[in-house]
């Protein structure tokens, strides 16, 4: 089955992570091993506050695991793109400046990065808003800026940490469609974190269900439904129900 999924992009091996203050110990992630394949849409589904964000942080290099290793297949290409939970779009920069930022930090040529950023802004459907400030944009639009900025880094892996959690239901459905459209157009390896089962089944090639604190791998589902998927299709609902029974979503 593994061969069908293509080449491995990132290997997580026996990852554990715990935090401690002076008195308490808090285990966030316990012994997780995952292979992430090239250009797959991988969804990590898990309850509440536990471990998922920490896992993404470790893949992106923001934090290092207490135990275990994160390994990119190509050690020279470890750039990631990160779409954050809340909109981490800089309010003091225009849309263009925000999207350009990763390229600017790499000191790329100005006209070159303008061109690339313009392409990405068009890709996420924000044409015409290049010079707007984030305060003039809606929540969904801000998250589009976040996605464009993540792409601008030319990432090997695109990490999305509950990017639509703060949006209203309507916008959320719309953004789910959008993120698939963008991904089809600019294929990348995506690791998408959510606590919403419907969202997971709608988006994923593969859903990895994580347990509650500390996060462990509970079950892996390969979703073979045809895209675009229908939320009320019989197979969709059956799959959704199966996953629902198997999660300890603490709601």
């Amino acid at each position: 089955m593994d061969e069908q999924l293509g080449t491995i992009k990132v290997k997580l091996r026996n990852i554990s992570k715990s935090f401690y203050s002076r008195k308490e110990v808090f285990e966030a992630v316990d012994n997780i091993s995952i292979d992430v394949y090239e250009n797959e849409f991988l969804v990590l589904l898990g309850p509440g506050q536990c471990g998922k964000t920490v896992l993404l942080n470790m893949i992106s290099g923001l934090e290092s695991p207490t135990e275990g290793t994160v390994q990119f297949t190509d050690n020279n290409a470890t750039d990631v793109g990160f779409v954050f939970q809340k909109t981490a779009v800089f309010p003091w920069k225009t849309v263009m400046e925000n999207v350009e930022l990763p390229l600017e930090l790499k000191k790329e040529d100005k006209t070159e990065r303008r061109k690339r950023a313009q392409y990405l802004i068009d890709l996420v459907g924000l044409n015409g808003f290049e010079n707007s400030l984030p305060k003039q944009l809606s929540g969904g639009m801000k998250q589009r800026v976040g996605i464009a900025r993540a792409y601008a880094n030319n990432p090997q892996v695109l990490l999305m940490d509950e990017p639509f959690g703060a949006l209203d239901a309507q916008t959320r459905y719309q953004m789910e469609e959008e993120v698939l459209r963008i991904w089809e157009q600019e294929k990348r390896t995506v690791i998408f974190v959510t606590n919403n089962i419907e969202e997971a089944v709608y988006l994923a090639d593969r859903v990895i269900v994580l347990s509650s604190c500390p996060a462990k791998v509970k079950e892996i589902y390969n979703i073979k439904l045809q895209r675009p998927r229908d939320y009320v299709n019989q197979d969709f609902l059956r799959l959704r129900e199966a996953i629902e029974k198997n999660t300890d979503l603490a709601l």
Partner: protein
Amino acid sequence: MGNQDEKTTSKVANSILIETAARKRERKQLLIISLVCIFLFFGIWEIAVRLNWIDGKYLCAPSAVIKTFMTKLSDPKPDGAVLGIHIITSLKLVLIGYIAAIIIGVPLGLLMGYYHTFDKLVSPIFEIIRPIPPIAWIPLSIIWLGVGTAAKCFIIFLAAFVPCVINSYTGVKLTPPVLVNVAKTCGATRWEIFSTVCVHYAMPLTFTGIQVSLGNAWSTLVASELVSATAGLGYMIQQGRSLVRPDIILVGMLTIGILGAIFTTLLSKLENKVVKWRAKS
């Protein structure tokens, strides 16, 4: 299950030890840096004066300041009073002006924040007077009230009054309408809404105002004593200047600083007691 717990605990315990040790080391290092630097600061100052890099006539060494401080506790020379008398004179002035400012300023600000008509009537006068620094009132108030206690209390009052009013006013204005509506649906009268909801909500900000007031009052006290006084800490440092006694000036500054710091600490302790509901950040 128990077995596994044990395993993870020991694994975690190990890394805790490493990291807490690192944190402790860092904290210790920072503390040492702080101590060394403050020691260097006073050390260099002391040496600079002793080796005559700085003319001792205009700036004395820290050791001389401590010596003068000790003698000033019992010796009224050369500025006419022992340190205790200066302190009491200044404290009396500050407390009268400051407490009066709180008693008048806070209710005024609260009422202005809630009652629109009252606000429109009072705030223009307030806005006209506000931009004039209290210190600029000194000569005029001396002409009106003489060189005694009254003039100085008046100026300290002015200085402390403004932040009390502004902050309690803003506090009431920022009361979330939801809270007011809750009270309304419970059938509260306007006065009840004001006294039970708005006043409570305004408390943290009011306290900030009271703190700012204290700083203002304290520094205005010094100013008014610099201009005209026969005792008090401001008078003492002014005398130190006329007599070219930097040690007297520095003792005065030190005392002013210490008393100010003590007041601020006491006030924030009190604030924590009164405004318990506010989440600590």
